[in-house]
């Protein structure tokens, strides 16, 4: 009886605390936003700029998040090396683009100068991801779930330090595509061309991926395998090869995102995959891990929040360098979603009933 009472008191305390936490977050956002808007420091053009930046950054998160979510959907495993796959794509594209740039090809043919490195990055990333799957994950397919997770972290470090070993710790600059300099006027608003190109390319690639998953034989087989491997095998589906395709397709998206990221930030280094990888994982959880549209939505929401959050509600609270806290916003969102809606924005309730 006593333990029962103390347990109930504890439950009550926990739920009071959780509610307090929610109220606190909402209050911070509201008070900050109101005081920022009253101060009127930013013009509406600047706000639009924040949103556009958020969309282009967020669409990169979305592209990477797709790989996390697809692999999770099929293997119930978080592929923590996925961020580094993004890095390998960026490196592959860097070397090809630099060579193309030296021959003058990019200047004379900017569209192909953009597309060819993207395709190459997709191939490099897919190839490396397939190797990682073969070496680091497949032998552990039937091991307890913690084991492949540790192996994934090992694969992540391996890729990072292998690339540092080969290419050094320095920063490489992705060759400029002159055609992407400057702004376009869209509805009378000046928007940097590169941001438009990144967001549009990401949207096209995600549309292609979504149609592959929904309408092709291999995509349907992926969905079947993610529901039940044994039954999928009974249909004649080679489960291993579908798993490999899933890794390859997710990695190709990450590789392409690596190139788009290089267009936006121009810098390539062996660690560039680390933070975007974790952000994209956050985006995948935010949208509902295992859910493909969820990863896209989660990426965009995260990108936009990160981009407008510091100026919108942190600055109004009188925080001196709010932009330094943009990562904190992302991770606060991760913690909050895990606490309050673990199934994510679009996720279904994670039920344990499995027929």
């Amino acid at each position, binding site marked *: 009886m006593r333990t029962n009472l103390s347990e109930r008191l504890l439950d009550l305390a926990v739920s009071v605390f959780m509610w307090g936490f929610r109220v606190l977050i909402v209050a911070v956002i509201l008070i900050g936003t109101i005081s920022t808007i009253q101060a009127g420091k930013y013009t509406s053009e600047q706000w639009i700029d924040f949103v556009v930046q958020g969309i282009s950054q967020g669409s990169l998160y979305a592209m990477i998040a797709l790989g996390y979510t697809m692999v999770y959907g099929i293997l119930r495993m978080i592929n923590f090396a996925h961020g580094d796959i993004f890095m390998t794509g960026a490196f592959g594209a860097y070397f090809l683009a630099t060579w193309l740039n030296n021959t003058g090809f990019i200047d004379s043919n900017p569209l192909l100068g953009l597309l060819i490195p993207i395709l190459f990055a997709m191939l490099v990333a897919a190839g490396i991801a397939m190797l990682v799957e073969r070496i680091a994950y497949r032998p552990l397919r039937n091991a307890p779930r913690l084991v492949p997770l540790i192996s994934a972290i090992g694969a992540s470090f391996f890729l990072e330090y292998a690339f540092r070993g080969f290419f050094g710790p320095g920063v490489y600059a992705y060759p400029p595509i002159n055609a992407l300099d400057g702004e376009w006027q869209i509805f009378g608003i000046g928007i940097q061309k590169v941001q438009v190109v990144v967001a549009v390319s990401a949207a096209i690639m995600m549309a292609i991926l979504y149609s592959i998953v929904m309408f092709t*034989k291999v995509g*349907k087989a992926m969905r079947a395998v993610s529901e039940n491997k044994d*039954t999928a095998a*009974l249909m004649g589906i080679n*489960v291993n090869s579908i798993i490999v395709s899933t890794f390859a397709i997710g990695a190709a998206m990450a590789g392409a995102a690596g190139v788009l990221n290089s267009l936006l930030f121009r810098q390539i280094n062996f660690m560039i995959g680390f933070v975007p990888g974790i952000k994209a994982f956050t985006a995948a959880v935010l949208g509902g891990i295992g859910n493909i549209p969820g990863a896209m939505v989660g990426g965009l929401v995260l990108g936009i929040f990160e981009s407008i959050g510091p100026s919108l509600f942190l600055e109004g609270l009188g925080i001196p360098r709010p932009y330094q806290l943009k990562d904190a916003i992302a991770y606060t969102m991760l913690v909050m979603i895990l606490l309050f809606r673990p199934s994510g924005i679009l996720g279904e309730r994670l039920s344990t009933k499995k027929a």
Partner: protein
Amino acid sequence: MSMLNVENVHTFYGNIHALKGINLHIEQGEIVTLIGGNGAGKTTTLRTISGLLKPSEGNITLNGEDLIKYPAHEVVYKGVSMVPEGRGVFARMSVTENLEMGAYSQSDTGKLARNMERVFHLFPRLKERRAQLAGTLSGGEQQMLATGRALMAEPKLLLMDEPSMGLAPVLVELIFDIIQQINNEGVTILLVEQNALMALSIAHRGYVLQTGEIVLGDKAEQLRNDPTVQKAYLGIE
């Protein structure tokens, strides 16, 4: 030569010796039923034939060809399809997509369309619900879908695991009618059932499985009249 020959098959589930030397054979065009209590090894037998489990010992041949050497996804190409226990429909895929998955081993799209028509003819309910997600179907409809899906591969041998499980009596009769109809169209059937009475009423022959061993094998009529079978599985004292 029998269509399917299972000789002295031993299968382990981890440390559990689930099948202890199973011998059975199925002739072309037969319905053979495998009856037995919970944990007797009925499902294990089917999973071993379909390649999901590998026996530690013994032989399985289909029309004389060794089946054990093929992984599960290649056994389908040899003409063996399975309706798994608990139906195992792909809940988040539509009825049509489930049937398409059943035809995964078929490369001819014209055939796919024809087989889908055949399935819709057998189960008009599925045609009505073809755009619906399989997870939203009732238990009976899911059983129809799982059966139809297995037929999409044009099997020579159909393995069915407890098709009557959890279904209302009317639906059980419907499913058993369909099984007979499928059999009349030339598909050989191995039927695992707890509902021994129903199973023995449509089967040509039957085997009784007890803790991983076959203790009886005879014509269905003989089994129905066997006092030990009556007592243990038919509820007749």
